[in-house]
């Protein structure tokens, strides 16, 4: 037992453990609503980005529809709880399942095509979803978006109390659960087969890896926590807008994978934290915000093509 605890506190996990403790204590130390908002947002984005890394990085598919999965999860949860009176907890689970099923359907044309075509199919899907949201006005609120989404209750405790602090822990829990799920998945036999498919598809297939099955399962798995994150986002903000399907959102989350480092689950989490903070700091300067983010992306691609995570982890190994 003590031996095992010792292992947990060994070098590799010490940093993560410290980080978790800091994140749990942080909202009690800094009691600032805006600060808390940025943290919640960055944790939710971190969930989306790290799950996106599974299909984008590990499977090597140029998937541009991941934000659409995130948004669809949010809309499903919002509609279920607002119009059908389903408990938010159940709607989060249903939204997550719905996203997984939807994602496994979008992936079907990708059994036939690869590379640049995947960009088109997935981006086309997100545009279709946008058109669908605009046209189903009485359900989705059209271009105005959906609002007055009910709050989550735990017993009698409304999550909106105490400056929405409960949402912080919900998002935090989601991030931990999703990261555990992803790291286990990537190291499992399934994860190895997915990496093998990316590295050398013909050989992997000839060794008995089923491309179609792994593709559908991998996309489905990546949608589970993404849909749930969308649902939590919907309940936290209380409103959703179809403009989330625009390029601005897509670029921020996609670049958090690339800035953090592709093919590293932790990298995209670090990247999401950095980008959300940067983009929120710049929120008052209007269009300059995206210009600065664009320059940042080009700069990182030019000088840190593997993302900043390898450099960060080198620093970590040297000083911890």
């Amino acid at each position, binding site marked *: 037992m003590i031996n095992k605890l010792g292992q947990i506190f060994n070098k590799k996990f010490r940093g993560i453990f410290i980080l978790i403790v800091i994140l749990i204590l942080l909202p009690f130390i800094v009691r600032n609503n805006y600060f808390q908002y940025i943290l919640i947002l960055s944790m939710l984005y971190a969930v989306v980005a790290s799950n996106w890394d599974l299909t984008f990085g590990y499977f090597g598919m140029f998937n541009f529809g991941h934000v659409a999965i995130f948004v669809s999860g949010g809309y499903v949860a919002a509609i279920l709880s607002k119009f059908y009176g389903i408990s938010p907890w159940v709607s989060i689970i249903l939204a997550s399942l719905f996203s997984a099923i939807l994602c496994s359907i979008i992936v079907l044309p990708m059994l036939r*095509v690869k590379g640049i075509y995947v960009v*088109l199919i997935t981006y086309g899907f997100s545009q279709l979803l946008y058109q669908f949201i605009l046209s189903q006005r009485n359900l989705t609120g059209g271009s105005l978006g959906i609002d007055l989404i009910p709050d989550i209750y735990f017993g009698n405790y409304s999550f909106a109390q105490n400056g929405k602090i409960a949402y912080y822990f919900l998002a935090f829990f989601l991030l931990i659960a999703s990261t555990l799920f992803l790291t286990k998945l990537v190291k499992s036999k399934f994860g190895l087969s997915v990496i093998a498919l990316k590295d050398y598809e013909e050989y992997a297939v000839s060794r008995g890896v089923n491309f179609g099955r792994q593709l559908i399962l991998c996309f489905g798995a990546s949608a589970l926590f993404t849909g749930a994150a969308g649902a939590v986002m919907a309940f936290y903000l209380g409103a959703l807008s179809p403009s989330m399907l625009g*390029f601005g959102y897509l670029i921020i989350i996609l670049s958090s994978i690339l800035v953090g480092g592709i093919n590293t689950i932790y990298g995209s989490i670090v990247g999401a934290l950095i980008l959300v903070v940067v983009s929120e700091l710049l929120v008052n300067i209007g269009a300059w915000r995206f210009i600065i983010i664009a320059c940042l*992306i080009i700069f990182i*691609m*030019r000088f840190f*093509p593997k993302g900043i995570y390898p450099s960060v982890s080198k620093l970590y190994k040297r000083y911890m």
Partner: protein
Amino acid sequence: MDIFYTFKAIFISGLFLGSLYAIIASGLSLIWGTFRMYNFSHGSMIILSAYIALQAISVGGFLFGVITAIIISFFLGIIMEKIIIEPFLDKPEAQLIVLITTLAAMLLIDNSIQIIWGARLKKLPMLLEGRLDFVGVGISFQQLIIISIVPIILILFSIFLKRSRIGLAIRAVEQNLDLSLLVGINVRNTYAITFGISAILAAIAGVLLGSNYLISPSLGAGYLLKAFIVIIIGGLGSLTGTLLAAYMIGIIEAAGQFFLGLYWTPFLLFTILIVVLTFKPTGFFGEKGA
């Protein structure tokens, strides 16, 4: 209303849309053919050149404006290639990196336009005022000019690609990179010039679009998507395929807007796209393995 009139009207408006899509998609198709890369910033380049033309027209008249827009776009294209594409061409995941950097360039251009010219809708002067009666359907001179000028521009463009030294170099690089290096073609410069030429096509598209529709900074993405559909259906890298597909999509879209309405036309286009990709992934005129 008799049915022939409807079909004639749909055909002409489809031809018009098709001409616009042809000029928009040809620049994208050129980049795909030469670099084997997808340029996300092409739509924004189109809108940017429309704004440049607008500014220059207010200074020195229409012709001056158009020529200025074309020249500035050419150099902007070359600068862009040097900054966001060339440094990455040797990297193992070049295709992915260029996808991201051109996406970033798109963000950069769209927001720069918004800062310089503001988000309000703007319009270029018409090419020519007035309407006329064409095979029983009313059509503006504007539309007639665009329908007839686009094929001429694209034919000139393909003659340029086939005959001129630069055009031959572009096609050589497109077909066999190693041999082009061997016979002494400066591949780096050829890439930059290709990007510049694609920017010229974008500038022409921008002027034609801006003289016909209202322009705003964020319009690029929508046109980019249409161009994307066109080059995929036509076959990536095939210029003839791109043109035929552009007219096909134009007519289908015009018919869709008439019979299905504005909301469902995108669904129709994407359904066609997914069916084409599923049963003929190389498009109608694409090369094998493109």
